[in-house]
């Protein structure tokens, strides 16, 4: 078992309960031991920083200070916005010593203190890939999600701006793809995988948000995905709950469900859907789930036809994985595989 200081964040208690529930199920079998920060507070999302800087960073830093008190080093955050806020405060407090000093002055009013750099701030996806490992994950899979076509939606705040250089690529990250492949799902090419869901614009400028949501859903639809998979409560909320509004705004009839990756991991590990928060979506997952639940065709459509070797060869691919430091396969094949 690996021990982590757990920062759930507000969404896990409300709109992203499915994320919380599924994480709680899969943590034990995967060897993730979560110790929740006692009396954590909201990270301020993307709102507080736009109002008043020092209080915004002090709000985040209270969590860091409480986490550091546990004596453990690694903080695990499943929410992308929380993850970024914690990582950002930790980074900027060191980069700009004046900020660090002022935040600590404020923390002192609550008898707290935080030394930037004393914690490792990690996202659940990073922990799953780099601590637990794909091999362990694969070994635990009892129900491969064969035939389920998933669009891997990593979103923005996990791979970017990536202060500690933890992620494979800020634009086309491979981590979520690797996890989904490991649980047997068929990952479709999804060019919008790291683009924006609209964030808080669903609240303050819905027209802007609808367009971003439309781009995502139409892209997933075009790639013939059954379901989108996310690592972020905000992404899930916007694509799921505001899909109806987006449809009426554009006169479309999209029905693209979106769930958290932990929910699919849970299914692959053999947990029943009801324990993993399925059913709490506004856009139903019923049809998508039926593709693996009742009807798993043996010869599922997996790969398209191999690219014919005519014309000009493609450049070699450059996937930075430990196992294939110098991959010699052309990239186009990689994309199809």
């Amino acid at each position: 078992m690996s021990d982590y200081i757990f920062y759930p964040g507000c969404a896990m208690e409300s709109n992203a309960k499915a994320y919380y529930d599924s994480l709680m199920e899969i943590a034990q079998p995967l060897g993730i031991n979560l110790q929740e920060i006692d009396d954590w507070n909201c990270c301020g999302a993307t709102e507080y920083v736009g109002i008043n800087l020092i209080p915004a960073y002090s709000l985040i830093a209270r969590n860091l200070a409480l986490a550091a008190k546990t004596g453990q080093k690694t903080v695990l955050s499943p929410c992308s916005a929380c993850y970024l806020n914690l990582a950002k405060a930790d980074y900027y407090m060191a980069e700009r010593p004046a900020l660090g000093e002022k935040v600590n002055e404020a923390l002192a009013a609550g008898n707290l203190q935080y030394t930037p750099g004393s914690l490792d701030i990690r996202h659940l996806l990073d922990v799953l890939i780099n601590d637990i490992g794909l091999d362990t994950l694969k070994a635990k899979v009892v129900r491969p999600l064969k035939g389920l076509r998933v669009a891997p939606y990593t979103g923005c705040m996990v791979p970017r701006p990536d202060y500690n250089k933890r992620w494979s690529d800020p634009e086309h990250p491979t981590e979520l793809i690797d996890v989904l492949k490991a649980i047997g799902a068929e990952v479709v090419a999804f060019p919008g995988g790291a683009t924006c869901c609209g964030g808080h614009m669903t609240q303050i400028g819905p027209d802007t948000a609808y367009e971003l949501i439309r781009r995502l859903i139409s892209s997933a639809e075009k790639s013939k995905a059954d379901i989108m998979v996310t690592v972020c409560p905000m992404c899930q909320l916007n694509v799921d709950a505001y899909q109806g509004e987006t449809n009426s705004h554009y006169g479309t009839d999209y029905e693209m469900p979106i769930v958290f990756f932990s929910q699919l991991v849970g299914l692959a590990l053999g947990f029943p859907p009801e324990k993993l928060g399925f059913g709490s979506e506004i856009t139903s997952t019923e049809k998508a789930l039926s593709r693996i639940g009742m009807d798993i065709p043996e010869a599922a459509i997996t790969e398209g036809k191999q690219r014919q070797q005519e014309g000009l060869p493609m450049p070699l691919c450059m996937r930075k994985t430990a196992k294939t430091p110098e991959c010699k396969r052309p990239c186009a094949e990689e994309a199809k595989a």
Partner: protein
Amino acid sequence: MSKTPVEHVHARLDHDEDLSLLHEVSMKTAGVSRLEMCIQCGSCGGSCPSEMDMDHTPRTLFAMLRAGMREEVLLSNTPWICVSCYHCVVRCPQNVHITDVMYSLKSMAIQEKKYRDSSAPDFSETFVEMVEKYGRSYEFGLATRHYLKHSPLRMIRTAAMGLGMLKKGRLNMKPTTIKGMEQLTAILNKAKEMELAHE
């Protein structure tokens, strides 16, 4: 201690009246903003997914900062349309912390009450009010209050969805309050006395 190139720029800006607005924004930004290093290439404006709804691209805004156009910059809707996707940040060839600069511009606009449409600033302020009151965000309270004030019609349209969220247990009717409210309030009150500016 030797100065980094950016600190050199800062030191020079201190004496240069023409760049005082740019410098002010730079110093109010959380990390080392590197705003002074912008080469006006447009990576940010080209990357932005919500540019179509902005009155100026981020790049234009930075040029306006250089030109000292305080009023126009603070009245711009650009920072309020920013979705914090960080595409511009990772693509910026000069590593300018663009998203964080947007946050600084928002807080300056709020302080000086400079905005054409109060919907976005109100949302942020209401959100923060809830957090300051409970220590956790409170979506139900936030959404109802925000919609009532700014788009009652939309509230009717989204009522069904909201109800769905409620039924599926995804929207808490009551806020959660943390135990250490007193401590948090003390911290935030102290923090509000301070500002990140010249150092």
